[in-house]
């Protein structure tokens, strides 16, 4: 038997693609409005392939499939992939299994941005390049920049601990301002609250169009950075001696992962646990090399969020459950399981 370098096995790849397809099919055919399942899938095929054929749906049903379900499923795929991959990257960059995409204050910054936009009536959270989304995006990136500046200030050793602590400080500070704004504008509490719980409510393709370009570029870059993340696992000093510019690599990876998170947060609010549990699940199932974890997290995260969103919009029909509730409901017990497994190992 000859040993091979860590890489994704063909079987896993087929399995991951199969999982995504199953999730997409379920996400498309199940919904509050009952529509013939085969016809729904035909309609999806019709919307993808060129040419026109009759799927057997009437105009209203076709519109539900094309402008409600399909964009929502695609958005779930993108957001799920983005959060999971950003989480995996953060875990590698900080050599910390508890790291998630919100580690450096993205959630608090995005929350503050969204709250400001809602409180000052800058937008309604819908439409192309809406101010709530833009403000959340800017707030999220601002918090990471602030965390980075504070965490590396006067720290010649570039220790990741000080960065994580700075993240906690920045998050607390931004949350304090956010809470103050929220409490002084109680009329908007419901809308703010909804944003925080996260959701993939779409009407058409605007969110997908905003997120897709950034997400695809960032996901591509991170998928190729698996080997570099593996080099970081021997610690800063050895990685430097192996020829890696550790400081620069860390900045670049954090910038890419934060852009990805911020753009996902801007369109979907805060969806917790995905970025934490998906990379860990992948690690437990397939192996601990980031050459495996990052690409597999893209697929598993995408499919997982489509399924969570399916639960979110069907569990309480006709009302909708915030997706953050679903991911946390499945995520929290799973997290305990991971802690137990790693403790035993």
């Amino acid at each position, binding site marked *: *038997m*000859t*040993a*091979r*370098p*860590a*890489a994704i096995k063909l079987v896993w790849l087929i399995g991951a693609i199969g999982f995504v397809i199953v999730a997409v099919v379920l996400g498309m055919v199940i919904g509050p409005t009952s529509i013939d399942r085969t016809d729904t899938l035909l309609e999806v095929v019709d919307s993808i392939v060129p040419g026109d054929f009759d799927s057997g749906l009437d105009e209203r049903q076709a519109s539900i499939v094309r402008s409600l379900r399909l964009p929502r499923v695609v958005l779930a795929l993108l957001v799920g992939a983005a959060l999971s991959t950003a989480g995996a990257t953060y875990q590698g960059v900080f050599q910390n299994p508890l790291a998630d995409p919100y580690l450096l204050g993205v959630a608090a910054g995005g929350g503050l941005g969204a709250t400001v936009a809602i409180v000052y009536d800058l937008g309604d959270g819908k439409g192309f390049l809406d101010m709530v989304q833009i403000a959340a995006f800017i707030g999220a990136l601002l918090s990471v920049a602030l965390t980075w500046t504070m965490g590396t200030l006067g720290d010649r050793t570039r220790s990741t601990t000080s960065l994580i602590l700075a993240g906690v400080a920045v998050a607390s500070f931004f949350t304090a301002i956010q809470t103050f704004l929220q409490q002084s504008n109680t009329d908007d509490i419901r809308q703010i609250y909804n944003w925080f719980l996260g959701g993939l409510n779409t009407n058409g393709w605007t969110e997908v169009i905003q997120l897709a370009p950034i997400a695809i570029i960032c996901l591509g*870059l991170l998928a*190729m*950075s*698996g*080997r*570099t993340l*593996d*080099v970081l*696992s*021997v*610690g800063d*000093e*050895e*990685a*430097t*001696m*192996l*020829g*890696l*510019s550790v400081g620069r*690599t860390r900045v670049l990876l954090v910038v890419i992962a934060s852009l990805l998170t911020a753009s996902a947060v801007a369109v979907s609010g805060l969806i917790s646990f995905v970025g934490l549990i998906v990379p860990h699940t992948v*690690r437990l199932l397939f*192996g*601990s*090399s980031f*050459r495996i974890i990052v690409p597999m997290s893209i697929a598993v995260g995408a499919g997982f969020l489509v399924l969570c969103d399916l639960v979110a919009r069907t569990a309480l029909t006709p009302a909708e459950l915030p997706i953050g509730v679903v991911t946390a409901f499945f995520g929290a017990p799973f997290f305990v399981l991971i802690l137990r497994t790693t403790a035993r190992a």
Partner: protein
Amino acid sequence: MTVVRATGVSVAVKGYVLLDDVSLIADEGSWLSIIGPNGAGKSTLLRALAGGGVTAGKIEMFDRDLDGISQRQRAQLVSWVPQSPIIPTGMSVLDYVLLGRTPHLHPLANVSSSDVEIAQRILDDLDLSSLAARTVETLSGGERQRAIIGRALAQEAPILLLDEPTTALDLGHQQDVLRLLDRLRLSAKRTIISTMHDLTLAGQFADRLILLSGGAIAAEGSAVDVLTEQNITDHYRADVEVTRRGQSVLVVPRIDPQESRSTEETTHGH
């Protein structure tokens, strides 16, 4: 040809001087061994030669100032075997050795089949082929030590810095590893600088020794010049008997304190 030249190198951490104005040179294809008691600054010197933590002085490799080149270029010139490396969890021995290919790969590129071939040849040389698929953390101390040396060899750098490369190894593997390094030195003209605790072994393999004490060079030269009873008594506060057998200088601790006292009296002229 002088490959490594350190001039007036000092290292200070939080006001403590660990290395004070050390200068040394190493020629191509030579083996320089740094010896000295605990805390003499051996590891600090080795790390400084790899470009880490130098507070004053200049280090040149192939006449190029280390300060002026990128991490990547430096790692193509120098590889470093740390004394206590961080062992990543869940990484196979093959992948661990492949980490050594980092300076030859684009940050976004994966390892190629030629990288894998290089790694597999090194695993063969180090008697690790049968363990290639095992994870590094499941290896014994000696197997792990060889994997770390393997990683450094995969860098294919002309200069090898080894911090206590044989401490964890059994006698047979000690000899194997040192002989392999010696072969590389002769055939591939690698320059080796190592720290070693075993003075006899240090004297056997190195063609030059530097005795470091209190962060400064206390003695320098061939094994015969440096490994004297006087030097070892002064700097290690050890009581040893030094004898020569053929090419080797044997350093053997004395068991009998009586014998030692009489020697001490003679040396100090009482």
